[in-house]
């Protein structure tokens, strides 16, 4: 097996006196799609932020491979209304990109004409696609998504995840994501990690969905939703709707 891109060993995080994560042994390999699920307050975002380096672990360590290039799509980005920012300028933060590269990134994201638009004027779906386009500019080998579809409706979220699958297919980058859209996400993942302060269980989506500890956390209902999603996944008629947005 190839060396993991990122590995945590015995990771523990305390925040404000609360033990948010404990004894987390987690690794993601190149090209793998891993989804972290878990109830609110289970430490999903904390794990992502520790991997990003935004949070200092209180125990254990995080090993990053030498060639690691991170792309990050945050849950949401609150732009202060006093900050003027065009889409093209945003793509060039922190490293300026050529007009041609910015255009190519926008074309690929299906946003060809929006380069001069203010970020604040974008719809929720467009905004998320711009965030993804920016994250991909540096050719990351690990893409981190923190509930990136939180503000989107279900067809919007499904289209977003199909885009993630395309990106993975094209670039081969690994994807690590947190999501509440269990039924949408799980079918797209190679591996699901169920987190609740520690790793409760992990494995292939079907295996995790059937695990007693997972059912205890999410109830029986999600299995039905998963099956429903698998059914819907055969239909691709809402592509055009998202593209025309």
């Amino acid at each position, binding site marked *: 097996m190839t060396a993991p891109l990122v590995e945590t060993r015995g990771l523990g995080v305390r925040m*404000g006196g609360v033990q948010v994560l404990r004894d987390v042994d987690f690794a993601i390999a190149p090209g793998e799609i891993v989804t972290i699920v878990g109830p609110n307050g289970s430490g999903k975002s904390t794990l992502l*932020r520790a991997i*990003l*380096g*935004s949070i200092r672990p209180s125990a254990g360590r995080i090993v990053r491979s030498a060639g690691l290039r*991170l*792309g*990050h799509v*945050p849950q949401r*980005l609150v*732009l*202060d209304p*006093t*900050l*003027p*920012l*065009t889409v093209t*300028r*945003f793509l060039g*933060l*922190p*490293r*300026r990109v050529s007009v041609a590269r910015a255009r190519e990134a926008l074309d690929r994201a299906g946003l060809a004409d929006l380069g*001069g638009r*203010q970020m604040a004027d974008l719809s929720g779906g467009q905004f998320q696609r711009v965030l993804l386009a920016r*994250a991909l500019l*540096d050719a990351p080998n690990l893409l*981190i998504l923190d509930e990136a579809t939180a503000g989107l409706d279900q067809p919007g979220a499904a289209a977003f995840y199909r885009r993630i699958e395309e990106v993975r297919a094209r670039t081969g980058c690994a994807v690590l994501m947190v999501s509440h859209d269990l039924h949408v996400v799980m079918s797209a993942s190679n591996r699901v990690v169920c987190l609740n302060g520690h790793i409760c269980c992990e494995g292939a989506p079907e295996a995790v969905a059937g695990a007693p500890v997972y059912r205890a956390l999410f109830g029986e209902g999600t299995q039905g939703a998963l099956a429903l999603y698998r059914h819907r996944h055969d239909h691709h008629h809402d592509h055009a709707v998202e593209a025309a947005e």
Partner: protein
Amino acid sequence: MMLDDFMTRAVLAGIGTGLAAAPAGCFVVWRRMAYFGDATAHAAILGVALSLALSLPVFAGALGVALAMAVTVTLLTGRGQAGDTLLGVMAHSALAFGLVGVSFLTDVRIDVMAYLFGDILAVSRGDLAVIWGGAALVLGLVGWRWSALLTATLSPDLARAAGIDPRQEQMILTLVLAVVVAVAIKVVGALLITALLIVPAAAARPFARTPEAMAGLAAVLAMGSAWAGLRASYALDTPAGPTIVCVLALCFAVASAVSGASRRA
């Protein structure tokens, strides 16, 4: 020699201060740090008092205490203390201790009033050198860190993913603001420094499509207002620092009205 004229020196001081304050002020606005600017400026009065008591250069004292205040507040707010309350307590405590401290030095009380409200017409050649040196330092730092500062302002997590340490950028901004305060205290005084930081940025906002355009326009407005305010204060015999801020406020009002009208049209 041109610099022999007090009015010329005042205009140069005002322009240099505006040039330093405007880009730094944009970050104050974007990051909602207006109160932080106030706290740093108020602390500078304590620095002035200490300098006068110890016969140190006023600029050094103001810079030192402003920097100490700014760093302390940055570190404490980073640990989850209630930032707003803490800033208020520290800002006004520093101001009060500064004013009380100065009252023991009976012969310099007039000087401290000058630092509360500014005394731009008394700017010496040495002051000019300090102001333009400070402005160059501020512009250099902001220009050097511009993209990283901007990314960290948008989102600390995005900055992390790009290999930028948001705490380091925050500290650089803290240093920049302390220098701006030390430079501006002679020009508009401690009580109006925040106006010099945020009003040009706020007036420039409606006309800017990028952060760079906003900072550039804010700098032009700040320099123009410094010049116009000094002319007006000379003609109307009004205090110079407050007159400059009044001109800036008028710029803001006009900018808001124009952008409001064009949005409705």
